[in-house]
């Protein structure tokens, strides 16, 4: 349907007048066009708010235990109930947002930079660069990823930094492969040749011409791995690696509450679990919207 695309684009080009706040306008358009994207962004704003101001506004100290009010079901005083030590679960769930999001964001930032660069270089240069990067990715993929992450954290030490590193390493193949494939397609594109004729060095072509063009695809990948990274961090904490009690963290809280479900105190595990699920769900939905935002072709 080449022709119809041309017709639409020409009509759009006629109507188009470059505007200063076009990015904002574009964001608004992307969200209004797709209700799911709008919902995902709203949810994301909520999570971001919790992470930023949550610790200052929660009704109770997340670490303060109250032996007179242990294992209380949800009530007006304790919206999500209390746990075995009488701590307020609502406050703990909100406060935990910051730590979980921090782990996810920093590990994804790390891996998207490393994996993206390695992948783009592999796809663009080919040859030995490609072989080395691809074999590293293959080696990582050969392990059960969660077990690999467990092993890394166990070997390096039980700290938040090491959770970030482990999560980054297990996501490396995803980024490297996507970036490699996309760079490979564009290696012989006309604009790359033109950049070469303009006197750009190979590194410049890689960083300034190819990398920005694969951003839309990387954005989807980033949003998907964000959810996965949160899940991974929580999973590690659940089995007792990484974050240690009494720090509020969704994985630990689910682990702490798991034993109480059978005796009827379902709220201890349910609410942190639901928060975890919502966060992962939100990041997964966000992918499409983010791609539409960063892709200039969609900005007609």
């Amino acid at each position, binding site marked *: 349907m080449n022709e119809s695309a041309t017709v639409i684009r020409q009509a759009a080009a006629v109507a188009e007048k470059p505007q200063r706040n076009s990015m904002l306008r574009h964001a608004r358009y992307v969200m209004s066009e797709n209700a799911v994207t709008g919902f995902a962004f709203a949810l994301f704003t909520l999570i971001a708010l919790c992470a930023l101001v949550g610790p200052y506004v929660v009704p109770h100290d997340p670490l303060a235990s109250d032996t007179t009010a242990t294992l209380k079901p949800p009530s007006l005083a304790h919206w999500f109930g209390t746990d075995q030590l009488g701590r307020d679960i609502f406050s703990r769930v909100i406060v935990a947002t910051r730590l979980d999001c921090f782990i996810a964001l920093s590990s994804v930032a790390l891996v998207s930079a490393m994996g993206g660069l390695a992948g783009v270089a592999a796809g663009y240069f080919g040859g030995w660069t490609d072989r080395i990067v691809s074999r590293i990715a293959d080696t990582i993929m050969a392990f059960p990823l969660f077990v690999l992450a467990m092993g890394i954290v166990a070997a390096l030490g039980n700290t938040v930094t090491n959770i970030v590193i482990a999560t980054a390493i297990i996501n490396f193949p995803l980024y490297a492969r996507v970036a490699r494939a996309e760079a490979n397609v564009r290696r012989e594109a*006309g604009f790359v040749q033109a950049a070469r004729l303009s006197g750009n060095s190979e590194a410049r072509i890689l960083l300034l011409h190819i990398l920005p063009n694969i951003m839309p695809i990387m954005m989807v990948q980033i949003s998907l791995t964000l959810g996965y990274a949160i899940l991974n961090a929580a999973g590690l904490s659940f089995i007792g690696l990484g974050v240690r009690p009494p720090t509020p963290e969704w994985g630990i809280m689910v682990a702490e509450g798991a034993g109480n479900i059978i005796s009827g105190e379902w709220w201890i595990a349910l609410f942190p679990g639901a928060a975890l699920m919502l966060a992962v769900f939100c990041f997964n939905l966000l992918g499409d919207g983010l791609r539409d935002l960063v892709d200039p072709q969609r*900005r007609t």
Partner: protein
Amino acid sequence: MLKRVISPDEGKGLPLLDVKNLTVEFHTRRGIVRAVEHVNVTIEKGETVGIVGESGSGKSVTSYAVMRILDRAGHIADGSVSFSGFDLRAASENDMREMRGREMSMIFQSPRLALNPIRKIGKQIEDVLLQHAQVDSDVVNEKAVEMLELVRIARPRERYHAYPFELSGGMCQRVVIALALACKPQLLIADEPTTGLDVTTQKAVMDLVVELTRERGMSTILITHDLGLAATYCSRIVVMEKGKIVETAESEVIFRKPAHAYTRKLMRATPRPGISLPDLLPENQTAKTKPLAPTPKMRNQMPLLVVDNLVKEYPRQGRSGSLGKLFSRNRPVPESEIFRAVDGISFSIARGESVGLVGESGCGKSTTSMMVMRLIDKSAGSIVFDGEDIGEIPASRFASLALRKRIQMVFQDPTDSLNPRLTAARAIADPLLRLGGVPRNKLRAHCEGLARQVGLPVELLDRFPHQLSGGQKARVGIARAIALKPDLIILDEPTAALDVSVQAVVLNLLQDLKDSLGMSYLFVSHDLNVVRLLCDRVIVMRSGKIVEEGSTAHVLVKPQADYTRELLAAIPHPPL
């Protein structure tokens, strides 16, 4: 078996296809766009009609509406389409599925995309036959081979087992034609069937389509942007502009007496024998372009570029297994495993001269231009540019040398050659920043100057490529190429992806720039009609070798080589 939707005696006396007052609308972000407005076309049985127009004129959308294959954003807003009296607009999707392929079928622009890449071509023809229950499954094999034979595929029994990637573009298009004709439809819609094919292949494919459809008494709609092609093969021509039909006439009449201004413009813009560059422009614009000054002959000067015995070899793929390669990496490759893309060619280009390099796809012309451009390394021979053997400098190092400024290129596809994430201004500024030594604060003024030089409105400089039209993108590409004031520009089919009227303007622009800046051009093309307009000298290549070389007038009027004659004969000759 389902009943035939249209019985042969139904709709007697009616035209085969009757499109009345057709309006097609597309829902876009900025409201409703009317792609086709109040279009009326009738096609009689056995008639060949051409629908001609430039991109965005709605010619393809019209045919998609007839086939009811518009994409989701588009719908028929008004009008009626009837096929032998059968209302296609009201037909159910099930009926339409039966109609497509059996009663009317379509040939698409890109044959390779139209075929399933992982299914044998014979099987694909069988699929169509079985789908429409045209033959019994025990003879379907014979029938498929018969179809391949019909479209003149040599050794059809062997080719039955071929996959699309094993066939050339022309052969793929023949298979697509076989698919389209397999169920003996009454109407064939050919949507730019030969765009992207070589001129000799184009002739073969079009001759085949016309002959087969005539034999079977079928009607054909040929959708094309090439007025010359349509006039050669169609009896009647419908000219469309911006979604409306501006003229319908017999093809003999349309070239002699075009009634509508747009038809006249299109007709003038079509390159044809016996005209010069300014003739391509619309009547009211010719006045301001001065007649061409003959290119000064500078015989005593040293030529700008001398290419001597240039060779490019590639290892043939698939000859030695990858395991074999792994174990014997350093063993010299035997001669038989080497493919010579460019096989010892020599030529020279003088200062201010434009030379055309003509040949069909795969003849090595692009490889030659890439070597001269120093984007790929040669295998043997020398490339002497202004006294210096640049062939000795590895391509990977060339980008950083000052010499890079002096050889630039205009690419074939203006869309592909612009970075989608850079604005027009940024694209033009790129060479200035890297090699031009222009300070950042003067960059904008430089870009605006270049934009004016190539006739690009300055306010468009802040747009991204997808917000520009094809012609505007071509201008950005040209501005980028001339930004460094190079001595030699290689034009790699710079107008192949453009509409004829835009092509006319761009060719004239290139000529003006050459006159004012004194550059030399190496014009790589497969279209002799275009080369004739811009070049002083022509080199004809085939299979990596030069078959003929000489002044444009000489080569085109009195070709020496058989191959050149063949190329010339394949150009569509509209009735004049």
